[in-house]
């Protein structure tokens, strides 16, 4: 089977029923998708399959054969964050970080299909994603800002503090 993950094509040999999440994390070392509940309930493993957000833990790898997979790693790079990633930094939308990559993938898909900064619509789009730190307000603020196309100064945050991105977390 062939999987194209964040632009790189890999040939893999696993049972077609193997969850895609296991292939990404254990075979390919792509650890952006998190293995939270392994049954579709938390959203932490969400990836884009040909642009559509889906749970990697629920995708039989046989169905992903020949598709383009995008994970959080594929949204941007540390030195070149995507607008959604910048918004998450700016709004302090990550706390423990476990749900973040799934949230960002869902947010990217929401924006790609023309989503606006309407909070209710964003809540609906992220409805399958659980944040155990309960940081939902900041996540929704971040997605709304990214949906508006705001630009972000990553040396400050929405609350005026220096970010860990800019000063290594010393503030």
């Amino acid at each position, binding site marked *: 089977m062939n999987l194209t993950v964040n632009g790189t094509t890999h040939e893999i040999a696993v049972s*077609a*029923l*193997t969850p895609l999440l*296991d292939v990404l994390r254990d075979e390919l070392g792509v650890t952006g998708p998190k293995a939270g509940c392994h049954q*579709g309930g938390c959203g932490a493993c969400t990836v884009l399959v040909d642009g559509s957000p889906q749970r990697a*833990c*629920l995708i*039989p790898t046989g*169905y992903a054969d020949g598709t383009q997979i995008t994970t959080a790693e594929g949204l941007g790079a540390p030195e070149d964050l995507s607008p959604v990633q910048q918004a998450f930094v700016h709004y302090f939308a990550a706390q423990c970080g476990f749900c973040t990559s799934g949230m960002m993938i869902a947010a990217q898909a929401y924006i790609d299909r023309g989503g606006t900064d309407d909070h209710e619509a964003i809540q609906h789009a992220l409805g399958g994603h659980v944040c155990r730190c309960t940081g939902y307000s900041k996540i929704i603020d971040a997605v709304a800002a990214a949906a508006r196309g705001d630009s972000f100064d990553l040396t400050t945050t929405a609350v005026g503090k220096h970010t860990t991105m800019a000063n290594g977390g010393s503030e």
Partner: protein
Amino acid sequence: MAGASVASDAATDVLMPGSEDEAIAAFGDGAGVVVVGGGTIVLPDMTYRRLRPTKALMLGRAGLTGVSTEGSTVTIGAMTPVQELVGMGAPLGPCAANVADMEIRSQGTVGGNVCAGAGQEAPRGDLQGALLALGATARSASDGEVSEEPLEDFLPKRADRLLLSVSFDEPAAGAFAGLDRPHTHDYTALAVSGTRSADGTIRLAATGAGTHGQRLSSAEGGDPDAALEDVVPHDDALASAWYRTKVLPVLVRRVLSELEESS
């Protein structure tokens, strides 16, 4: 979680047919075959070792996808993602929108939803009630023979047949009322679907009031409390029998009045 993976399950014979005919042949009489639609039910069951199939039939490439309309008849392929129904009229559209979240709905299929057996904690099959209220027929195969029958007759034997598609005639009016879910991934605790056909016939059905969707024929005359003559509400992880007994007539009343308003 690598230990929970099924990557090493070489014991499973996996078949991925490329057409409906191939799928029917691969299913055979269904003995020992685990049918995989979108994977949203089978994969967790395998991951958590509740299910260890020796033979798995993956339908993702069998071409059973899509919604087609011919005259007033709507036909939905078994592998159509639940999400594709969300924009439809009541009761099916709002019923589909009440299934999981958008991402799971894009993976989970109509066939998987209709055919799933009861889960550990609650019945599955959110769409069954809406399709019963629509008077849907099920086209299915076993032993190479394809047949079509009312969904009501199909549901009790759904484990032994390969569902290919469901069809129904567009109703003159439709309505759906369900309990809100505390989390997007809960199965439907209780929901009522209703339709009114052009000749005024009312048809009601419930999801969550039994092991699979059930017609509520007794209430179709207009008495919501009569719905309790058709079902035996049960206790499970989502709701108690007492609660279901109290709420079912309320949902029936809402559906009936919505149908009445639309006439």
